[in-house]
């Protein structure tokens, strides 16, 4: 099984005139837990819906587990999808949802699904419409996991949950994923969620992929450079400036380093995932927690 979990070439999706996703080219190997971050409306849901086969591309191509998404029943059975706000049949019971999954999926794991719900204290008799937000998310995840998917797609699964439920949900997700050897793509607009569970990052900005890669490599390959205001305006060699900001006393750069960073003029610091994401999202480049009186960079 050498096919990538998810591979796109020039992928785009247009709604009427607006491009929700444009010119996306990336390849995610199997075995990763991928965090898909971006502001609201950046195209996270669109990308996941394309991967689940709910949407068809307007441009380019997307290949999921080596096949066109939703090409046939077998492909659909290999991918688990947890849609945003957990799409469930409100008037069907939890039990009915499990039966639905059992009837529709060849590799359905009924035992694990029942055990998981029992562990969560969700009664099978209850109607899905009466469940709390956290329980709905959990039921939705249970349904996706019981398919024994090779790839699990989660579209903002924790956005409606309070911080505690969030932590629980992600924790349960991770333990299940680790036990079942499944690739995961998880979208969120909160970096803290990603940081907790993901080892691979895709940042979407304005419908485009700004950066994609393994988080460890990204953190190793990016640095914060702190310099005085008099520091030369030109970026240091072998570095690509991702974001820059200026305060009264300092200049701050986030750079991508293609080689070792040797810059005597600058103080070199390692970067946090949050700063890295924010730098790519272009929100005034870098948070400057330690520095008073900030000015917006041009």
């Amino acid at each position: 099984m050498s096919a990538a979990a998810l591979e796109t070439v020039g992928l785009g999706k247009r709604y009427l005139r607006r491009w929700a996703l444009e010119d996306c080219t990336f390849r995610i190997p199997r075995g990763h837990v991928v965090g898909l971050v971006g502001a609201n409306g950046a195209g996270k849901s669109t990308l996941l819906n394309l991967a689940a086969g709910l949407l068809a591309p307007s441009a380019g191509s997307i290949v999921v587990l080596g096949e066109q998404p939703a090409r046939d029943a077998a492909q659909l059975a290999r991918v688990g999808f947890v849609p945003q706000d957990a799409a469930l049949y409100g008037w069907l019971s939890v039990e009915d949802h499990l039966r639905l999954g059992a009837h529709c999926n060849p590799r359905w794991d009924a035992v694990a699904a029942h055990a998981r719900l029992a562990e969560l204290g969700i009664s099978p008799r209850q109607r899905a419409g009466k469940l709390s937000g956290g329980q709905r998310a959990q039921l939705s995840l249970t349904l996706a996991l019981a398919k024994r998917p090779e790839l699990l797609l989660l579209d903002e699964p924790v956005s409606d949950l309070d911080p505690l439920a969030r932590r629980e949900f992600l924790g349960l997700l991770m333990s299940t994923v680790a036990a079942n050897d499944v690739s995961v793509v998880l979208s969120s607009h909160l970096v803290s969620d990603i940081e907790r569970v993901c080892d691979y990052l895709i940042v979407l900005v304005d419908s485009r992929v700004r950066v994609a890669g393994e988080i460890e490599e990204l953190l190793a390959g990016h640095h914060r450079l702190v310099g005085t205001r008099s520091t030369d305006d030109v970026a240091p060699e072998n570095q690509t400036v991702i974001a820059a900001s200026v305060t009264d006393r300092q200049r701050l750069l986030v750079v991508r380093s293609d080689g070792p960073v040797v810059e005597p003029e600058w103080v070199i610091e390692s970067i946090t995932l949050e700063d890295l994401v924010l730098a790519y999202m272009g929100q005034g480049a870098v948070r400057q927690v330690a520095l008073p009186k900030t000015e917006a960079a041009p």
Partner: protein
Amino acid sequence: MTWLAWRQLRTQAAVAALGVVGVLVALAVTGPYLLHDYDTVVAPCAAHGDCLAVTSYFQGLDSQLRHMCSALMLFSPVLFGIFLGAPLIARELEAGTYRLAWTQGVTRTRWIATKLAQVTLVTAVLMGLLSAAVTWWQHPFDLVNSVLWLNFDWRDVVPVAYAVFAVALGALLGAIARRTLVAMAATIVGFLGVRYLVTEYVRPILIAPLRSSLPFRLQVTGTGTEAAIGPPQLNDWVVSNQIVTGAGTPVGGSWENLGGFSVKGNGKAVLSGVGRCPNRIPVSGGPHWHAIPATNAALQRCIDSFHLRQVIDYQPASRYWPLQWSEAAIFLALAGVLAAGCVWWVRRRLP
């Protein structure tokens, strides 16, 4: 997928079935009495020769239930379309549950095909039961006073085809509109529109009507004189009835009580749209002046001088069943096209 589709449909199907069973019970309770009445009261009357009083008594029986039956049969196809067809896809889109359904290990094509097949089957079975029951119940009335073509729209096979069509229409409109309520309203409008067009413009020419063209004869009736009806029998369906001149031009005007004639006091008369009568019409007072034999003969002479003919297009009673099957086939074919449209729309245009 079969399980889920049925799980979703079964509540509506149960409600519809309950309604149908209610009607069946009402008909089953009253039907035997009607048959008994017919056998004991109406059937023997033929032996005595005078049936008028008996038949009019019999026709007054259960008139409420009869009207309800015809209304029910006329409206239930569109009800199936509204309550079973329109929500079929629209509700999934509205609630967002399509995202769950379409990411199971079942293709969308199979999903929609299963749903359509189930809803069509339920509709056809329930509507077929209704139609059969109503037809059975009405049988004694048919024996007394057959109005074959007046029952065409709500008897036998066409209602079943209408209902199947309405359901497919509702499903497709629901997929396009993505709103159940909008789809319901559009289903009503679309269904009535198609029914009207077919009834008005397609049914009369589905099988080329027979034509009778005979010299125009007046006939005297109890209240006056009117155009005599030619060869069509009681149970034939008169599609069109025209008086034409020798050249074939239709003559307008009403022939009831000879609205087409204007007769002056001196007996000179004009046949409107045709010309001046060559002969004089004897005029006497009274409301039934034209029923007097001499007057009537004079009017007929005037008509004959213009070589007027009465042209009637009609469908004989023997074509009732061919037309039932043909029209049913049309609606089933339309339903098939709409169902194919549903599959295409769900596959290519959604979400």
